[in-house]
């Protein structure tokens, strides 16, 4: 019995430490702050479709990684804290997901990403009145740098770009093939200009004169230097939450969780008396330990995730209910209190295990087969159910063993 008291003390010690660890303004915050989802702090979740149709299958991975790096750089210029940029595959579609937390000017951010220059060179075929543009291999992927120059004859700003070796070679071939003919330069699918090629250009430098103002030219240079997009992207999914609504959701879920917990505790104590008190203490320890696990493993808390966790609070005492009901039956059969309690634990176990298995099956499948928002829910539900089995059985049993003995 002394051993039980030691175990119980260890669990309580962990719970107290966990309490300090999870408390939002407690000491744990300095070392490991809570990770809150965009729907709670406010922010922008953007999903872009990446068009890889013009890129050979062997280069796709390389291009996608390049794309991610470029967009990361772009966002860093913009100054968002901890932006998340990652590649996702949805069916056959390649997607780029951008998450910007706590951002104020969402439109500016979307522009920063969306307006990254997509540069293309196209050959021109004059067909009577009709002009046809034939795509070439040369595009922004090969641009290594850009700078502003001023046209020596008219003093207008123009943008000089340089290609890497591979790009330089393509450019050389392209110009050689088109001497005396125009070459079209497209930026973000808009025709910028169509200069006539005078001679073969080697060395990998090109000039876009366009009709830029100084500011436009500067912006374009900045964008090129952050990197041009190696493949075109389109925004297909957008989720923007204001920080006001995010904070409101967080506050409301916490209040609802608190009230829900209190009702459960009241119910357990009124219905099961002394046993209910122990189950409630175990429930509080469960809440603290589970939150500590979420924080320790860096689980991002989303609104759905918090909902999943609050739901496990309602399920966590189920094991206790099964045990206590079984205990009552054993008492009726004439067992002593302590024996009945232990028998209740032993015989309720298969039932507890089975009930949690069906919820775990659901959570696991949801986590595997769905996307981000549902995943948060599935993950907290799964972790919650697993921890609750420990808490309802081990913690409650220790409480009962240690304190029932003292009562006698």
């Amino acid at each position, binding site marked *: 019995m002394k051993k039980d008291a030691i175990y119980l003390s260890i669990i309580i010690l962990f719970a107290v430490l966990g309490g300090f660890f999870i408390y939002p303004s407690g000491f744990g915050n300095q070392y490991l702050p809570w990770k809150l989802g965009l*729907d709670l702090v406010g922010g922008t979740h953007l*999903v872009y*479709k990446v068009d890889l149709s013009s890129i050979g299958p062997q280069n796709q991975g390389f291009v996608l990684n390049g794309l991610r790096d470029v967009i990361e750089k772009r966002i860093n210029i913009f100054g968002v804290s901890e932006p998340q940029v990652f590649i996702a595959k*949805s069916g056959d579609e390649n997607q780029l997901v951008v998450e910007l937390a706590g951002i104020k000017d969402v*439109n500016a951010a*979307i*522009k920063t990403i*969306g307006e990254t220059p997509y540069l293309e060179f196209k050959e021109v075929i004059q067909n009577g009145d009709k002009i046809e543009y034939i795509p070439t291999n040369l595009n922004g992927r090969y641009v290594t740098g850009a700078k502003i120059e001023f046209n020596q004859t008219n003093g207008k700003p123009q943008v000089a770009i340089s290609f890497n070796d591979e790009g330089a070679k393509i450019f050389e071939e392209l110009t050689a093939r088109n001497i005396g003919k125009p070459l079209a330069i497209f930026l973000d699918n808009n025709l910028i200009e169509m200069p006539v090629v005078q001679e073969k250009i080697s060395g990998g430098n090109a000039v876009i004169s366009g009709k830029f103002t100084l500011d436009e030219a500067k912006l374009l240079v900045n964008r090129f230097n952050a990197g041009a997009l190696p493949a075109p992207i389109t925004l*297909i*999914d*957008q*989720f*923007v*939450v*204001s920080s*006001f*609504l995010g904070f409101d*959701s967080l506050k*409301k*879920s916490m*209040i*609802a969780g608190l*009230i*829900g917990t209190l*009702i*459960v505790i009241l*119910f*357990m104590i009124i219905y099961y008396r002394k046993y209910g008190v122990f189950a409630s203490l175990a429930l509080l320890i469960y809440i603290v330990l589970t939150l500590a696990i979420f924080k320790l493993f860096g689980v991002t808390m989303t*609104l*759905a995730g918090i*909902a999943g966790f*609050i*739901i496990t*609070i*309602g*399920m966590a005492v*189920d094991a206790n*209910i*099964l045990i206590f*009901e079984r205990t009552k*039956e054993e008492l009726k059969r004439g067992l002593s209190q302590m024996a009945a309690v232990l028998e209740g634990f032993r015989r309720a176990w298969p*039932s507890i295990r*089975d*009930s949690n298995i*069906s*919820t775990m*099956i*659901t*959570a696991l*499948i*949801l986590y*595997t*087969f*769905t*996307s981000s*928002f*549902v995943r948060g*829910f*599935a993950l907290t*539900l799964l972790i919650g159910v697993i921890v609750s089995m420990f808490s309802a059985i081990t913690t409650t049993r220790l409480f009962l063993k240690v304190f029932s003995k003292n009562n006698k």
Partner: protein
Amino acid sequence: MLNIIGKKNIFLSFSAILVLASILAIVFFGLKQGIDFLGGSLLKFSIKDTKAEISDLENIFKQTLGISDFKVIYDSQNNYYFVRLPHLSQSDHEKIVSELKNKYSSFKELSFQSIGPSVGQELRKKSLTAIAFVLLGISLYIVFAFRKVFQPVSSWKYGFITLITLFHDVIIPAGFLAYLGKYHGIEIDSNFIVALLVVIGFSVHDTIVVFDRIRENLLILRSKMDFEQIVNQSVNQTLVRSINTSLTLIFVLIALYIWGPLSLKYFILTLLIGVTAGTYSSIFVASPLLVVWQKLSKK
């Protein structure tokens, strides 16, 4: 002891009416699919100082975008406006926001979500996969749970009735959402699917607990009582735990429904109805059905 089996016709009729009404609601009203399945945009905003007329807002949307395919909903409880629109480009979104800001100085954008049609298709596919796997997983779980069943009722009957009760527990919240969709414009989203799957995972167990007890009692009491009495006694023995385990979950769900965030309201409502239906079915549907089936097969 409550005579649940004796009054089984009343309980079963009550369920049958609810299930029938739900099926009719789904067939005739259909389930209104939200933007995450069909693609589209949802703009949430508040206007604090003045009360904006819905018709004024509608005009703004018509004029700025030249579209008629949208719907403005006002939530008076929170003073929020919701506008459901087709899939918007970022520039259209900006146009609307600046237009609204011009007109109402206290306009505040709360959230904006725009989903392309291809994303919706993908999500629908994923949801259907998840449903299929949960049904498969739970069915396998039922087979596992009833692996040691003895006569007079063969194990597949327990399993089959469990599946019927799961259908009961899922169809009732779905029917209710179909009704809400028809009369209150409430749409189902991927959260709705999640809620139904959680209901399945949760309520399958209560039914298994009752059946487990029937199995156990059949072994001990078969010589002393007839099948109906044994079933009735088993239901009564497990009644309290069936109700209490569901009740604690229902408590937190009610707290979430009343005090929780607005965006989870219908997710929680679906869970609440499903879990309640599940508790009812494990007590008043599963075991009575077992008795009915047993009687029919004896004839």
